[in-house]
């Protein structure tokens, strides 16, 4: 009997990371801007995405969405009312999306060609912890935070906010009613990710959507080769 050490030095999520790299290069070749939307349950990801899809389409953009939930296709049906192609991913208990799920659903999605899209939105499962470890091949990770959640949420979930490229504050229409401290929220987000872009929006009134849409258009142009 001999004992020995075998050095591995390999990523635990190697399989996911390799798949995500493959997806990223497919997205780049197709010239589509892919965004991964992450937040707690109840932040308003679906309402925000609904409004985004409607406005992108109204401005002549081509957009589609993949939406992750443990169960039900309620969100997909809500989002499809925007007129954009939408596909539901049910994870059946898994608390985050993985690159393999995205890849499988893209294969099976009839009538949707990446090359025909300007934007693909991926709405992750509502969870502020686990989605941060799983790269989906996105170009931009968006962390959403609603005014009702507490301004210190970025400090409580630094991993997710540090991995985000943009932060969207939702439900700004009720900010005054819940005494939302916008300066504290901005400060806390920047304390975790100093170079992040922050947008304040209301999916209900449409306030702040212009800045967000301009950002999408600008980033979208950078993807088109």
């Amino acid at each position, binding site marked *: *009997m*001999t*004992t*020995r*050490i*075998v*050095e*591995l*030095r*390999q*990523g*635990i*999520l*190697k*399989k996911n990371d390799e798949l995500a790299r493959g997806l990223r290069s497919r997205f780049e070749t197709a010239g589509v801007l892919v965004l991964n939307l992450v937040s707690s349950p109840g932040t308003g990801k679906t309402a925000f995405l609904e409004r985004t899809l409607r406005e992108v389409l109204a401005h002549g953009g081509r957009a589609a969405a993949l939406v992750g939930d443990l169960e039900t296709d309620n969100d997909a049906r809500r989002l499809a009312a925007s007129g954009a192609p939408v596909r539901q991913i049910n994870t059946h208990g*898994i*608390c*985050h999306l993985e690159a393999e799920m995205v890849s499988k659903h893209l294969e099976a999605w009839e009538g949707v060609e990446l090359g025909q899209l300007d934007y693909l939105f991926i709405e992750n499962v509502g969870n502020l*912890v*686990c989605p*941060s*470890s799983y790269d989906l091949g996105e170009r931009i990770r968006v962390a959403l935070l609603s005014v009702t959640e507490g301004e210190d949420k970025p*400090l409580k979930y*630094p*991993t*997710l906010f*540090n991995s985000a490229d943009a932060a969207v504050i939702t439900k700004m229409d009720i900010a005054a009613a819940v005494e939302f401290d916008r300066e504290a929220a901005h400060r806390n987000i*920047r*304390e*975790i*990710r*100093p*170079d992040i872009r922050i947008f304040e929006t209301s999916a209900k009134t449409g306030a702040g959507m212009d800045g967000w849409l301009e950002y999408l258009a600008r980033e979208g142009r950078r993807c088109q080769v």
Partner: protein
Amino acid sequence: MHELSIVSSVVDNVIETLEKYPGARVTEVRLKVGALAAVIEDSLQFCYGIATEGTPLEGSRLVVNIVPVTVHCEACGADGPIESLQSFRCPGCGEPAADVRHGRELEIEAIEIEDPEEVKP
């Protein structure tokens, strides 16, 4: 709670490696986990016992080495660990620092195995 998925990936990766060492039994698995990886060691240990049951890893030790978060400072050029996960600032000059160099690791460093007999050259 994605520790079970993570531990399951560890077990799969180790079993794949063991193909090169037929009959070997695993006695220890060493992980490198960044402080920013959002993974809790206690949960890893708890899931490890369940995930390794009935595999060549059953009964092995799981050693988790935590890697502190370090940043590179654009302002002063220094590299160093941040003081807390609630403040991404340069430990030297105090300026905000967005460039994270370490702390996101999620790696299998090494495994310790027992071969049934000497490998003949």
